[in-house]
């Protein structure tokens, strides 16, 4: 990334044609995306038995990353729309780049749902036979709206700079986009949180918590992108604005950790079923992801809050740490949801029962109940490459540089 960025810096006129480094990066993304599609075809033709997902752990890496990318899409749109919606000072010209990152992340989120489907050719049924009572249906509707709205919002900003769209219209769009952004995270949370069958997920806190986690990794992403693009000479962001972003990231991290604490306390305090979940997180199979999230979050927050640590490389590191912390959170949520079965009485086990089916049920749940296969990693890499490619194409082709005097 930095190499590419340096290459961009060497040949500044990235807006027109872009530099060689950028083109190479886009090409690499295209190759990986095509490879991902090939692996997806392999998955569909040979069967999803090639993934590690099984009946008792029926979702895996794809849905983990779906949650993760929905979260990542938050930052851009919110960082960009909040200042416009409330008429306050922005973060110095990163608004359009930030929205571009939202668009790319939303595409990845939708793609992760698609690759998870057993029958993707039947996707049209979602629109023909919509069950409007299903949280998954809500999410599909809101995600689509969100993607379209992000594109419209980006277009409106560009047109506004050329005096074609009024400030009032832009402000209205930014308010609608903001509401939609909050909705998209809540609805994603409800896919999980409305299932009474998984004690770990079934909490009213999950909606707000998804919003806060999204703000953490989204702001982290915008911070990393802003620093990287400044270094590449694509745009120049004042240090004060980066510091403002970092402080915001620190605040979001605190809120997210606070929600985490609330949830753990509520699970553990009755000393009943919830204790199993807290133990699974703190000392069980998911402990690396639990402590990983805590350590990364705290480290990122320290960088954000200690003035002497707020150098550009360290702030970028804080952004990366925040993103990884939320990835750890997503793994905990998804795998953790399947790690504690409601009925654990032993019965016949077959290759389709559970990932580690060869032993007994106790052995299957002893370690992580699920770990992805190389095929799943390959498909996921393809989807991520698609998103990065879309973002880089946006940088190359679209007028995303700050307009003179933009804040």
């Amino acid at each position, binding site marked *: 990334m930095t190499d590419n960025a340096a290459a961009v810096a060497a040949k500044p006129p990235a807006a027109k044609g872009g530099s060689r480094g950028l083109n190479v990066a886009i090409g690499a993304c295209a190759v990986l995306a095509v490879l991902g599609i090939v692996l997806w075809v392999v998955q*569909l033709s*040979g*069967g*999803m*038995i090639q*993934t590690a*997902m*099984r*009946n*008792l752990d*029926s*979702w895996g890496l794809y849905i983990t990353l779906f949650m993760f990318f929905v979260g990542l899409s938050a930052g851009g749109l919110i960082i960009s729309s909040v200042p416009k919606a409330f008429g306050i000072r922005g973060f110095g010209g990163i608004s359009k780049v930030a929205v571009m990152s939202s668009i790319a992340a939303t595409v990845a989120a939708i793609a992760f*749902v698609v690759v*998870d*489907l*057993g*029958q*993707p050719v*039947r*996707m049209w*049924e*979602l629109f023909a*036979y*919509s*069950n409007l*009572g*299903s*949280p*998954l*249906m809500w999410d*599909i509707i809101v995600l689509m709206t969100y993607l379209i709205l992000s594109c419209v919002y980006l277009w409106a900003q560009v047109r506004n700079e050329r005096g074609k769209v009024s400030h009032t219209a832009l402000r209205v769009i930014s308010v609608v986009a903001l509401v939609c952004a909050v909705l998209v995270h809540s609805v994603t949370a409800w*896919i999980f949180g*409305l*299932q*009474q*069958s*998984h004690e770990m997920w079934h909490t009213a806190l999950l909606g707000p918590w998804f919003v806060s986690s999204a703000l953490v990794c989204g702001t982290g992403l915008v911070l990393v992108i802003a620093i990287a693009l400044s270094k590449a000479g694509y745009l120049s962001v004042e240090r004060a604005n980066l510091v403002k972003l970092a402080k915001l990231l620190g605040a979001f991290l605190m809120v997210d950790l606070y929600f985490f604490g609330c949830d753990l306390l509520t699970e553990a305090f009755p000393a009943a079923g919830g204790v199993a979940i807290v133990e699974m997180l703190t000392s069980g199979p998911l402990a690396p992801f639990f402590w990983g999230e805590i350590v990364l979050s705290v480290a990122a927050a320290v960088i954000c809050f200690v003035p002497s640590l707020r150098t550009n490389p360290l702030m970028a590191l804080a952004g990366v740490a925040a993103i990884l912390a939320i990835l750890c959170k997503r793994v905990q949520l998804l795998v953790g*949801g399947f790690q504690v*079965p*409601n*009925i*654990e*009485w*032993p*019965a*016949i086990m*077959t*290759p*389709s*029962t559970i990932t580690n089916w060869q032993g*007994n*049920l*106790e052995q299957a749940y002893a370690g992580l109940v699920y770990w992805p296969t190389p095929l799943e990693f390959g498909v996921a890499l393809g989807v991520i490459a698609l998103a990065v490619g879309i973002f880089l194409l946006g940088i190359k082709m679209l007028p995303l540089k700050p307009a003179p005097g933009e804040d």
Partner: protein
Amino acid sequence: MTRYGMAIDVRRCMGCNACTVACKVANDVPEGVFWTRVLTRGGDAPDAPAGENPAVSMSYYTLGCQHCENPACVKVCPVGATYRDEATGIVRQDYDKCIGCRMCMSACPYTGVRSFNWEEPGYAMDFALGDADIAPHQKHVVEKCTFCYQRIARGETPACMDLCPARARFWGDLDDPESEVSQAIKGREYQHLLPEQGTSPSVYYLV
């Protein structure tokens, strides 16, 4: 209204798996898939009791779809591929409609009653078994116990009823007080699985 249901006498069930096999044959259930299974309540392996000899205890719970009155799976299916048949109270699954998102598997509290065909369904026999009028099994869709919908449509009972040597299963219309199942439940102490989930299952365990 008819609301089909089943009562299973846990004190009679001896875990012989005759119902498991009857179900598999009647519905030509693919390899590695079981619509009804025998769960051992006791030790940590099938047929293993809890405790130390001689103070051991063990019982069997046969588990299939609970055909809930308030099914968690039906609410979450984005395309209505899983639905509750109001005329019979049976929770059904339309393979042709299922998009394979597996939301129902996640939402169902009864661990493992729904299964996904993770590959092209395979069979032990070269020819089809069971009833001629079952819906063909499909790759990459979710399936589960149908209460042998094809058989009850003909006025028969589900296949798992037929072979039970202990006569541990009772079948019929829960809304009809004279039905076999209602009579079996009457006066007996019974249990629903995971009642705290609020799903109101149509399967009663007589304990």
